[in-house]
């Protein structure tokens, strides 16, 4: 049975309309993957001598245990943002004589083969072997430790699914988790209760009593079962249907009237965002990531590297632009034939989209103004980045959108529907951020900070002035690719 499910998955991948594009993207991912593999392997090999060097007289494995909780938190964070949840289109399987549990097990076990589970092994195994080689502890202790580490990694894997799902289903549910983490972090910071210390102590016990390695393994099994139960309960077409059907939102966004002929399109887009989980998440993300600046502005090393500040500026004012804009026109995929057959001129359609994104950039730019606390330069730079986003990045994103042939299913049952919330989504943002950073850096080196800022500002301004011509050009491209887009959007794949 597993074999059949695997072959279904494989066919879905190679026969999808976007296969070509996914392969291009996948090659890039492979390179990134190789890079991280190498990095982690080097860490794994170098960790033991490194600790010996910097913590002379201490047992490396105890030091690792001491910081392990912190690492697990980091691991959890990057998984949260980068790891896609395992997906499978269950609808056709529902009525077939396949045990529900088998399908759910398949989905969950599939997730074990994730790259994110493979990376920690590259540290755990070499580090463990070095420990055995050094012969400080009995082999059984080190083996138990390695098993415990793998158990913890897999626990993070499945804990992430549960929390990520809760987060996409309901933002409020995440609040207690954030609160607990914040409290623990504060207690740790003020050295009231250093949980990472006690956690490390606990792990040290595993080395003393190897059979204790059963605890992380049990925690992994528990989380696995939790996930399984969760998925089994959702194994119905109407799992979340009632909730949706209960009462429709009646907001009409009448204030958009003032935008004249673009009003109906803006209303439609606002409803799209407001009433569908995925675009709505993009909004929450944007607000959440506004805090990104705090990481950089409070750190002097970054303040001396203005390139980073450009990156942060583009990112903070453009996060909604990237999250939403890169899926134009795929958001409208499920009714793209209507858009094409109705009385909708392409230019108007694109103008409405770019108008909406521009609006988001302006709002986010206004929300970043409190960063003036860190100096007028940062304040001015963020505004310049917003102008650059509006002038250059928005047309660029809309243009790239014409290559987008992958459907987004807005009204698909939300069961395991997390299309495009993974690493690939962030990759698209790289050129949008790297190009301005590079341009700024050149002018910064040639003249000054202000020179670089002026250059970005000028580019953004020129782009804004050319907006109409750019949109006309992009509309031509969209018209040319129209048939391929309609065809691509028709393909439903997960």
């Amino acid at each position, binding site marked *: 049975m597993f074999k059949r499910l695997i072959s279904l998955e494989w066919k879905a991948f190679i026969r999808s309309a976007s296969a070509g594009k996914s392969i291009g993207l996948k090659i890039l991912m492979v390179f990134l993957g190789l890079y991280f593999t190498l990095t982690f392997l080097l860490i794994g090999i170098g960790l033991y001598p490194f600790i010996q060097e910097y913590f002379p007289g201490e047992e490396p494995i105890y030091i690792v245990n001491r910081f392990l909780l912190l690492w697990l938190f980091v691991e959890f964070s990057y998984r949260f943002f980068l790891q896609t949840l395992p997906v499978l289109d269950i609808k056709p399987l529902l009525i077939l004589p396949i045990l529900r549990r088998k399908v759910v097990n398949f989905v969950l076990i599939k997730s074990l083969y994730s790259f994110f589970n493979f990376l920690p092994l590259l540290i755990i195994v070499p580090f463990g072997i070095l420990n055995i080689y050094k012969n400080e502890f009995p082999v059984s202790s080190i083996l138990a430790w390695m098993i415990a580490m793998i158990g913890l990694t897999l626990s993070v894997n499945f804990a992430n699914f549960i929390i990520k799902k809760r987060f996409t289903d309901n933002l409020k549910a995440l609040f207690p988790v954030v609160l607990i983490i914040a409290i623990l972090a504060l207690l740790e910071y003020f050295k009231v209760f250093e949980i990472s210390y006690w956690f490390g102590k606990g792990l040290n016990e595993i080395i003393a009593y190897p059979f204790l390695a059963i605890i992380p393994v049990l925690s992994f099994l528990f989380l696995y079962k939790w996930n399984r139960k969760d998925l089994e309960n959702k194994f119905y077409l109407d799992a979340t249907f009632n909730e949706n059907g209960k009462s*429709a939102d009646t907001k009409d966004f009448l204030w958009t009237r003032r935008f004249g002929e673009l*009003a109906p399109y803006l209303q*439609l887009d606002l409803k*799209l965002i407001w009433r569908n989980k995925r675009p709505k998440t993009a909004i929450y993300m944007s607000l959440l990531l506004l805090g990104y600046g705090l990481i950089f502005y409070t750190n002097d090393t970054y303040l001396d590297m203005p390139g980073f500040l450009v990156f942060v500026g583009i990112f903070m004012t453009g996060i909604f632009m990237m999250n939403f804009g890169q899926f134009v026109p795929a958001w409208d995929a499920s009714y793209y*034939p*209507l858009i094409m*057959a109705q009385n909708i*001129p392409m230019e108007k359609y694109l103008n409405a989209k770019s108008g909406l994104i521009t609006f988001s950039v302006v709002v986010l730019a206004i929300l970043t103004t409190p960063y003036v606390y860190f100096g007028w330069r940062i304040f001015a730079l963020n505004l310049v980045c917003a102008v650059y986003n509006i002038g250059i990045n928005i047309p660029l994103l809309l243009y790239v959108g014409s290559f987008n042939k992958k459907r987004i299913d807005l009204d698909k049952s939300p069961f395991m529907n997390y299309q495009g919330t993974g690493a690939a989504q962030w990759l698209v943002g790289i050129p949008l951020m790297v190009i301005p950073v590079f341009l700024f850096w050149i002018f910064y080196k040639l003249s000054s900070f202000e020179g670089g800022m002026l250059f970005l500002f000028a580019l953004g301004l020129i782009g804004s002035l050319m907006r109409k011509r750019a949109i006309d050009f992009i509309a031509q491209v969209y018209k040319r690719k129209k048939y391929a887009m*309609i065809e691509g959007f028709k393909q439903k794949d997960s």
Partner: protein
Amino acid sequence: MITATNLTKVYNGITVLNIDQLNIPTGQIFGLVGNNGAGKTTFFSLLLDLIQPTTGCIFNNEITVGQSESWKPFTSSFIDESFLIGYLRPEEYFYFIGELRNQNKADVNAFLENFGDFFHDEILGKRKYLRDLSKGNQKKVGIVAALIGNPKLVILDEPFANLDPTTQIRFKKIIKELTANGDTTFLISSHDLIHITGVCERIVVMDRGVLVKDIITSEETLQELETYFSGEHFKEDKRFS
């Protein structure tokens, strides 16, 4: 209203549509029948410029479809659920379509008043999104939306399928009312021979992309079509052997 010349569509070497010449005059209620794969939807999709013809072209009111978009303001259509916007309530959808066809809210409301019995109180004012409606109700919404704004050409693919009997009968009446003044052209495809002969003035039968019959509807048409579709040449059809 519609002229198609030398129109062909080829997918991977297989010709799915091949029409030498087809003229549909203004104001006609034109019916298209044929088995699955006859090319009905392909023809409609070409007419709406959703796919590109391999050869030939279609003129919609003397405008070449595919070169200009100026046929869009007077053409409306409902092909399948990809013409619906799932996250809108039915009213919002009607207003949106109305907006695109220069009808304000009041116009649309006035227009919808004619469809009270068509909707059976199941669609308007229900605080439900289109995606949560049943297939039949979705279809009703799509059909009615295609009639908003006095279009000169209405294209409906399989409008009778999924509709309940009451609505089917009501719908036939609506089509007749709308075409009474003779300047609205209807293009309808169907598998239901009784309905299509009941409503269409002219019926064209397609088989594997070719027009095989072109009939002006009369008393005998239904009989003629039934004889045709139960005919021997379908049993010998190589595709099914």
